[in-house]
């Protein structure tokens, strides 16, 4: 992969294929191969342009697949178990989602479901769909381009990690009046968050786009 700069003002004979513009500040750069393990930064705003890693694609696919499996466990296994005054209550993530389903607050249950389960799951599936075929050397899947754009657009809206912090706060809040035990689903969720964060650091957006383009043509 590539990058370095073109800044001599001779725009007439610039080869568009050999150029890349920083998505953050619009500065033009020449494309030069970026060695694996190095980071190419924009010379103007210093944001990362490309950071290719060795066998990143395999790692991302593996991590995304594990995260998707953990997601199933996190949703359906018991999440928290609460006991107070002789009563006991076991909740799964599904219960947390449907907690809002009474009356006016019904739409909020949809939003919570989307933010902590549906959107992260769609995003993981889209990444698998885009990178899976490329990992085993096939041509990219037919709708790989819109799928990867969807995955990128969903990034700020997948809030699984925020949910985990919310759980921690909620545990402190009820700690005084009841006994709480965390179930297997809670640990699945924590693992899911760590794996997703790892996967996102491995994934270099511009490198994926470049690879998608090259593989689609060949």
């Amino acid at each position, binding site marked *: 992969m590539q990058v370095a700069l073109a800044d001599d003002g001779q*725009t007439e004979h610039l080869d568009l294929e050999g150029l890349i513009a920083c998505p953050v500040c619009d500065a033009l750069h020449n494309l030069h191969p970026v060695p694996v393990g190095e980071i*190419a930064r924009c010379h103007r705003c210093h944001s990362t342009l490309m950071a290719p890693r060795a066998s990143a694609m395999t790692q991302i696919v593996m991590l995304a697949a594990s995260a998707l499996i953990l997601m199933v466990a996190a949703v359906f296994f018991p999440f928290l178990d609460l006991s107070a005054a002789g009563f006991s209550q076991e909740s799964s993530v599904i219960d947390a989602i449907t907690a809002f389903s009474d009356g006016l607050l019904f739409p909020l249950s949809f939003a919570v479901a989307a933010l902590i389960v549906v959107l992260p799951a769609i995003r993981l599936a889209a990444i698998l769909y885009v990178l899976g075929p490329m990992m085993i050397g096939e041509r990219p899947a037919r709708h790989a381009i819109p799928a990867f754009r969807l995955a990128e657009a969903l990034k*700020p809206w997948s809030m699984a990690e925020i949910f985990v912090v919310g759980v921690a706060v909620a545990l402190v809040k009820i700690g005084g009046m009841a006994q709480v035990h965390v179930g297997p689903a809670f640990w699945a969720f924590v693992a899911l968050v760590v794996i997703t964060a790892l996967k996102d650091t491995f994934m270099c957006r511009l490198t994926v*786009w470049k690879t998608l383009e090259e593989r689609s043509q060949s």
Partner: protein
Amino acid sequence: MQVDGLENTGRAQPILTARRAGLVACSVCGKVHAAGSDRCRRCHAPLHSRAPASLQRVWAWWLAGLVAYIPANIYPMLRTATFGHETKNTIVGGVIELMQHGSYFVAGVVFSASVMIPVGKFIAIAYLAISVRYVSALRVHTRQHLYEVVEFIGRWSMIDVFVVAILSALVQFKFVASVHPGVAAVSFALSVAFTMLSAQSFDSRLIWDADEEDQE
């Protein structure tokens, strides 16, 4: 490091941007196209040299977020019923209650997520949107950094909404104790979503354009 800015040290000449070169760059994948192209050939995203009406959209979502933030603070976030006696907690009320229990750290987390981050975000977005029109006191790199922080941290405000969701799901012991979400949970969630959209509508390239004009 393959990228070096040697020719630009000391800012002897303005930096060549795609717009200055008469080209259009894709803000999704960085591919450069001839002016007048309307879709990116690599990622098929719509192409704009600068996002159209970026500032108008920023202000519209910003205002919507601010309007939703007011009821979020006035109305109760959480309704707790214990033995038939109902107590209502607003966002700030919940923080105070946590402090009375002695959980200062968690109170701090909730306070930063529900009060400091949203308020700071309103100020930061407004500042960024104004600073692209007028000469700014902050350096351009500082403003870019501020924008990145706003984009990164904004979603964490949702913590309190999730806390309410978890408590309402967990604490359902009929008469003994039960927790229900209040109206503020909805308006707070909306406020966070609107300010996230406001930050996303902001085209970061505007920060750098303003810097360019200052130097000329």
